[in-house]
């Protein structure tokens, strides 16, 4: 066998049994990276909105003392503002993803860098939430446990730093794992294709 044989067989391959779909509206596009990223974003949005609602009602659910509720809701206001800003940006990205036609190397590059930029934005969004969540957790701790009477100022500061460090490590772990699982592997796949195209 040689390439001429392959060429001849290729040219003669029949297409009698190939069926086109009866209706194009039934096609959804299943396993493209774009579809998978959009699907992951939708799922995540549901969890984020649910989480924000739960956090908003947590003072009532957990019985936070009314003295702390003003501070809590001011912090919660920041959480909402930051979330709205990032969610709007993600919404634009989500819409842009649908319009990628992948009909050229340039569109692959655009897609690659768009995903990359948005992964970084997703990281910054989550890291921006760390101090807010730490403040909220601290408010609950201070409200529930009389820390000031149990330890002096320097120990309180140490406790704050420990809470911040632990929260950062936990969020970092979950975040990087989530990015790798939901978005990173598609980015890696597209990156490897672009690498193959390099000189």
């Amino acid at each position, binding site marked *: 066998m040689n390439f001429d044989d392959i060429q001849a067989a290729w040219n003669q391959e029949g297409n009698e049994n190939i069926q086109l779909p009866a209706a194009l509206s039934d096609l959804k596009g299943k396993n*493209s990276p774009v579809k998978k990223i959009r699907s992951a974003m939708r799922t995540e949005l549901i969890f984020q909105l649910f989480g924000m609602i739960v956090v908003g009602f947590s003072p009532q659910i957990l019985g936070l003392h009314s003295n702390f509720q003003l501070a809590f809701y001011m912090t919660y206001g920041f959480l909402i503002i930051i979330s709205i800003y990032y969610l709007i940006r993600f919404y634009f990205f989500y819409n842009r993803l649908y319009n990628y036609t992948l009909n050229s190397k340039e569109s*692959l590059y655009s897609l690659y860098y768009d995903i990359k930029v948005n992964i970084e934005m997703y990281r910054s969004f989550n890291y921006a939430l760390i101090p807010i969540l730490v403040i909220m957790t601290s408010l609950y701790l201070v409200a529930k446990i009389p820390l000031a009477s149990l330890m002096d100022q320097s120990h309180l500061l140490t406790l704050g730093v420990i809470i911040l460090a632990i929260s950062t490590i936990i969020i970092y772990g979950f975040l990087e794992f989530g990015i790798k699982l939901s978005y990173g592997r598609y980015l890696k796949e597209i990156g490897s294709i672009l690498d*193959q195209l390099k000189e």
Partner: protein
Amino acid sequence: MPTENDFLTLLDTHKGILHKISKMYMESPEDQQDLFQEIIYQLWKSYSSFSHQSKFSTWMYRVAVNTAITFFKKEKRKPLTTSSIPENLPTEESEAISQELKLSHFYKAVQQLEKIEKALIFYHLENYTHKEISLQLGISEVNARVKLNRAKNKLKELIKNQGYEF
């Protein structure tokens, strides 16, 4: 505004080539069918942006190949472990094998290439020149030539490893 029927009629004359791309990129029939449908979906989605400045087939090949190289097979599907291709055929028998068997060996080998190598082999079999391949993939002509030669050599070795004289 293109209608669905116009598009399907146009596609009907090219469905064979889309099926060939699916077979080059995916191993299992289920994945091939998924990719085939994905390509049609992407073509239909972007058909309104087709400018008619190039041939329909040129545009279609580019969208189809780019869809194939970014397509993921379903993860839970079991990989094919058995081959329908007889191993180590004697030389005299190999000279008389059918076109179908040759294609089976070709597809089995080509599926093991890198995604861009598959694209290069595809365009080569569709009689694209190095210049045309370079334009389709957005690479230089020299790069297209070098990569195509590498891909052909790799394919040759893979077919040889299946017990074929090449």
